[in-house]
């Protein structure tokens, strides 16, 4: 066992840090969805900048145009990325972390040649079409169907919780290509151009704010997609979708984790600097704030240790269900931390856009234990697949 970086890794860190500090966009990333095109432009411009400097596709193999660095260097990159205050990948996320890697794993040379460079150099935005209304945590209940009609698929159905649908060029779309199939069989993974006739969008307001239409519901009404857009085999979409599950092997949320660690430090400084209830002593002396801050600080250190362990394990084995442990712990610790932030902030927490900037992310943190598999789902995975406890009886 050892945690000590090689001189190459240290040099990589220095290079990444140096470049990031110099190149991170100065302005704030737009957040309101009435400025959706601004968001697209901001995200793509930042992606182009990374591409031009050779940082695009940090986790992609170099033969596909990626940076092709080791897992540890990816970790270093994400750490430095977050510490430099770089903006989240945003609308480029699905292309870089899901669609691109899936094409690398299962796409045809033609699919790869067309799409991968466009993703990397910041030309195209992708969105995801996995979740469906009514299916919730039960992904196998997928009902969007695609009939094969000649060399085309004819898609009918609906998807939901699709981020950036309104500004995406393509969607990774899961649909049932075998009528009557159940659960995980008979599903295909399809590249769906978002300008295809028959696609309609309904923006969904989140609880975060009056203009936060982060998700869309996507309706498909006789949407005709070339059969050549299927990735992998027809009816093998479930496996194709899972091909990328372990792609970033635990580094995917490093930037979020670092941001939360930095948030703890900021809150500690804030609690030292602000007066508490009596207007005299600092808030850190007040009630249980000190204890909650200390616990959050320890928890975020714990999250980092978990991620390092995941990266370490990934060097030897494919990632297993243990990823659920990090997800479960991190999402709940983040929610505690975000709530602590608004409690410490006090009156200003009622202001959505206060200078402290704590309220909006606090509200967004309610999604942490829901998105990407609810905490209940994570606990089921841990109990059944890691601990080997019996599955609950199914009716």
């Amino acid at each position, binding site marked *: 066992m050892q945690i000590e970086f090689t001189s190459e890794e240290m040099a990589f860190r220095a290079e990444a840090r140096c470049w990031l500090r110099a190149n991170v966009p100065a302005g704030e990333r737009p957040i309101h969805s009435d400025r959706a095109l601004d968001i697209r432009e901001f995200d793509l411009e930042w992606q182009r900048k990374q591409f031009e400097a050779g940082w695009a596709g940090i986790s992609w193999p170099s033969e596909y145009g990626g940076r092709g660095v080791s897992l540890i260097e990816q970790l270093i990159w994400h750490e430095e990325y977050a510490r430099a205050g770089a903006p989240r990948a945003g609308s480029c996320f699905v292309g870089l972390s899901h669609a691109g890697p899936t094409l690398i794993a299962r796409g045809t040379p033609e699919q790869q040649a067309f799409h991968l460079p466009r993703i990397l150099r910041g030309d195209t935005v992708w969105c995801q079409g996995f979740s469906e209304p009514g299916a919730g*945590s039960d992904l196998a209940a997928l009902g969007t169907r695609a009939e094969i009609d000649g060399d085309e698929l004819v898609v009918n159905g609906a998807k939901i919780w699709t981020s950036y649908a309104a500004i995406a060029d393509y969607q990774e779309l899961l649909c049932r290509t075998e009528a009557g199939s159940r659960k995980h069989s008979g599903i295909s993974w399809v590249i769906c151009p978002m300008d295809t006739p028959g696609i309609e969008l309904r923006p969904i307001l989140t609880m975060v704010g009056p203009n936060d239409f982060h998700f869309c519901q996507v309706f498909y009404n006789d949407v005709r997609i070339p059969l050549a857009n299927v990735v992998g085999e027809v009816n093998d979409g479930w496996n194709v979708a899972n091909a990328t599950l372990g792609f970033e092997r635990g580094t995917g949320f490093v930037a979020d984790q670092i941001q939360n660690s930095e948030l703890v430090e900021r809150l500690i400084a804030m609690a030292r600097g602000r007066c508490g209830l009596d207007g005299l002593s600092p808030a850190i002396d007040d009630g249980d704030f000190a204890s909650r801050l200390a616990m959050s600080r320890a928890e975020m250190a714990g999250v980092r240790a978990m991620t390092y362990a995941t990266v370490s394990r990934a060097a030897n084995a494919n990632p297993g269900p243990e990823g659920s442990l990090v997800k479960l712990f991190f999402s709940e610790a983040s929610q505690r931390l975000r709530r602590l932030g608004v409690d410490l902030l006090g009156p200003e927490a009622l202001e959505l856009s206060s200078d402290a900037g704590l309220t909006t992310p606090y509200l967004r943190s309610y999604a942490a234990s829901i998105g990407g598999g609810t905490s209940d789902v994570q606990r089921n995975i841990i109990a059944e697949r890691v601990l080997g406890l019996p599955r609950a009886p*199914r009716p």
Partner: protein
Amino acid sequence: MIDMEISSEQRQIVDSVQNLLADALPYDRFVPRPTPVPNADRAVFTQFGELGVFGLGLAEASGGVGYSLVEEVLVARECGRFLVSPAVVATMIGVHVAHFAGDRSHAEAMMRGGTPVAPALAFAPAATHFAGKYHLADAEGAEWALLWSEGGLALAHRDSWHGAQNMDSIDSTLTLTRVAVKDIMPPLRVPAANGLWRRAQLLVSAYLTGLAEAALDDSVGYAKVREQFQQPIGAFQAVKHRCADMLTRASVAWNSTIFAALTDQAEGPDADFQAIAAKILASDAAFRNAAVNIQNHGAYGFTGEHHAHLFVKRAHFLDRFGGDATYQKRRMLAANAPSSDAERSSPVDGLAG
């Protein structure tokens, strides 16, 4: 006599308020729109006034309906359930403040519902006077603000709101206005020693309890119909147990609130103690039930299309009204315990000691 059950007369009051609310202020008034729309609840304040909501606990001789704090608590709870603008609670309290301060004409105007009172959330609730910074909730169209600090309760007319500044509100259905008040002791005020602050505290606790209960009802209703893995999610023990815990918290909150109200009515020596405990428990129940309700709804709970998020946001407003949980916990430790030696040494006491 220990009677904590709602009487048939009280049931009638609750029913009539529920009917009005279900009719005039259903949850679907919060259907999201492209631009934020603050609530228009004050449009029905005159109906509330006609129904007697604002004068419920004031003596008939003073122009009120002649019921007690208990009936006001019952109504405030329903207002929480229906996510009515918290100005309704501030107006209920405002009537008493104006009355105690001897201003009959303003009290009557408030009772009619024509002059809504906005809750003023103090930046420094521990101050012993009224000057300072406040957030006003839903102040548009309000005539007064209800100030609340350790100095007691006071009404500040909108003419005395200095430097009013509208802020983006965490709850887009409630406007949020920063104001400064310069009056150390505004003319219409009631000192803390009067005990009216307990009435205010218990109306706030009742509203918070209503939030906790409505969040529970929302979860239970959803858990019975929403299916996952071919069964209602309410059959999953994780969901089931979360709902059981929600009911437990809501039940503790309600019983503490009504117990405190009855203690106040009976002039029990532990009235302060119970009023503080009720606020802590009701606030805790509201926050936790609201969060669990979102979780129980999954992604749908995180949207602005369902009203689950409003329970969280209202809890933040009401928690701060009269001082947040951190402040209440400090007061809880400073309060006199109900079973003090003084009470014990008395051979007979008027209230269960």
